[in-house]
């Protein structure tokens, strides 16, 4: 068997693939965060909790209404986005004129409230949700057995990330959004309803968290703390990528997933720390992040 650095080659190929899968989640979650921060200057600490809500909504749709995974891919993000819209209109918009820390504290509090509500309602050991029949089973890739569903997650993540990047960077709507954050009063003078644009952006970013939650439901234990376990890493991804950089968030998400995957083979106890080690190095050498514009 071929060996690389004392490890069997198939094992390393497997890790590369698994790293990409985990990176898919980092990319999708940090994408939403980057959009919200880049366009609204809000550090959304509730992102992990809304990811969790997305997973619970998926479970709830099946458990209470009998709606399966495929429709949930559409419905759950819309529900989470509507919740986001309510949060933005009801709470977050009041922090725009204040120091950035107020938005952070508000969303952090919201995350605790959401997690507390779900813990009270559903307990801490989680609920069961399985992958749809079409995507269950494994395929033999030669070097490893890949669950079909995980392959689907990579595919979905790439499609979602590309679509979002395209909308923000290449369309008229994206241009409007970017203009509205640069100079809201000027854009408003052109007859654009800026508050509505911003509210919808927040809803969209949060909807992405909800969508990631749907994709996560068959993979991970659906429990109220599932978001808080991921959110630390996802924030590191956003910082490394450059706060607010859409493309940076996507590329860094996948990249860090891969780095973490290899750490899990060579020295597992460090696999959660490695992300922050990378973050420290990046901040020392490029304070604005890998893809961020220097302030």
């Amino acid at each position, binding site marked *: 068997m071929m060996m690389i650095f004392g490890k*069997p080659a*198939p*094992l390393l190929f*497997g*890790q590369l693939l*698994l790293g990409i*899968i*985990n990176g898919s989640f980092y990319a999708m979650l940090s994408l939403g965060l980057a959009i919200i921060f880049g366009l609204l200057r809000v*550090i959304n*600490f509730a992102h992990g909790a809304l990811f969790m809500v997305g997973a619970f909504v998926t479970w709830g749709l099946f458990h209470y209404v009998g709606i399966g995974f495929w429709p949930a891919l559409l419905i759950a993000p819309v529900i989470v986005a509507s919740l986001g819209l309510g949060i933005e209109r009801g709470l977050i918009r009041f922090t725009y004129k204040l120091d950035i820390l107020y938005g*952070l504290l508000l969303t*952090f509090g919201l995350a*605790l409230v959401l*997690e*507390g509500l779900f*813990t009270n309602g559903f*307990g*801490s*050991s*989680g*609920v*069961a949700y*399985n*992958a749809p029949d079409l995507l269950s089973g*494994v395929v033999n890739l030669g070097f*490893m*057995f890949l*669950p079909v*569903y*995980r392959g689907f997650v990579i595919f979905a993540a790439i499609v979602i990330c590309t679509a979002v990047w395209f909308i923000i960077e290449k369309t008229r709507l994206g241009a409007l959004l970017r203009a509205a954050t640069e100079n809201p009063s000027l854009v408003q003078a052109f007859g654009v309803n800026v508050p509505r644009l911003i509210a919808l952006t927040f809803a969209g970013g949060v909807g992405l968290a909800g969508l990631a939650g749907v994709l996560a439901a068959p*993979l*991970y*234990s659906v*429990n109220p*703390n*599932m978001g*808080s*376990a*991921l*959110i*630390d*890493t996802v*924030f590191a991804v956003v*910082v490394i990528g450059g706060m607010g950089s859409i493309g940076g968030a996507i590329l860094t998400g996948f990249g860090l997933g891969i780095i973490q*995957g290899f750490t*899990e*083979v060579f020295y*597992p*106890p*460090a*696999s*959660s*720390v490695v992300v922050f080690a990378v973050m420290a190095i990046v901040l020392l050498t490029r304070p604005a992040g890998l893809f961020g514009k220097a302030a």
Partner: protein
Amino acid sequence: MTISRRTLIGSAATGAAVAAMPLGRARAAGGKSIKIAVISDFSGPYRDDGGPTSVACVEQAVADFGATQKGYDVTVLKGDHQNKPDVGTALARQFYDQGVDLVIDVPNTAVAIAINGVAHDKNRAFIDSGAAGSSLTDKFCNAQSIHWTYDTYMLAQSTGGAMVKAGGKSWFFVTANYAFGHLLHDQTAAVVKSHGGTVVGNVNYPFPQTTDFSSFLIQAESSGAQVLGLANAGADTVNSIKQAHQFGLTKKMKIAGLLVFINDVHGMGLEIAQDLILTESFYWNLNDRTRAFTKRVLPRTPNNYPCMDQAGCYSGTLHFLKTVHAMNNMAAVKNGAELVAAMKKMPTDDDAFGKAHIREDGRFMCTAYLFKVKKPGESKIPWDYYNLLASTPANKAYMPMSEETACKLIKT
């Protein structure tokens, strides 16, 4: 972005947790006052194995004891330790200073060890039901503490021993990288080796930041081991088993869930959990007495059946109250060492665990039951999840007192 989420939670929540509230009260006019505090995880990963259901079980014990009729005024308090030893220590100190006679439950070995020390300093009684670490009756044993329901040694003997005897000779461990995980791994590895098995690998993964176990599962698979030993608990175990299922590992390896509660099985669903081998010292559907107990307590906790940890809170509280009544001396009750010594002298008997006793070193001696999780088609009623495979009598299940034990209470 320099503010870490956990620091924020920690500082915000310490204040909240200490503001514990009195819950139930069984009042007799001019009765003798007894205070019991349930310190548990009310908001985190072990909430369903302890938390509100533990409180319900303690209240059930107060009711079954007939506190009011016997002239006692029993107050049940609760506090959330949030899996932080410093928060747990502060809570325990505050409770004992308020005149609490017994602190009970405390899942999480790290917090349990901390509170164990407080009980000793304050000379008040402490019954741990939720934590696993066998060091509580070994290195950390003291005259004020009792370890009730189970421990890592018993899990290793029962689950580990049974799997090796059934032919699972080579093991690969996935271990939560902290005191509890290491203890469980070391003791199970020792059992595997003593039965002629081998340990081909071990992965210490970061706790509690890990949600994806696929990398470790692939490593386990490529090691060629026959058994995957999961030295972890709660959501980590659920994630490990769920993902092992996705990768088809369950077809090639046997999975030993070294610490699985019935609430975890409920969370996974039988589709995923079926055929899992695990050990608990209580199962609600074990016999007539356990069913009777469960029927009584369920109205207090309708959505969550009690697991062994919570049943242990019932059993421990009931025995505590019986001892207090037998002592008939409220001044002596306030002396933790004297009270616990009296509890050790009196044999225990209740619906959850049947007849048992407490050993000199504070170990509650109950039978360990080995279960296999039912297939979805076999489960007929709600929470009907286990088939009994074997039972290990207490004297075989727990670490013998003479051997290797560091407990200072034992005079050899």
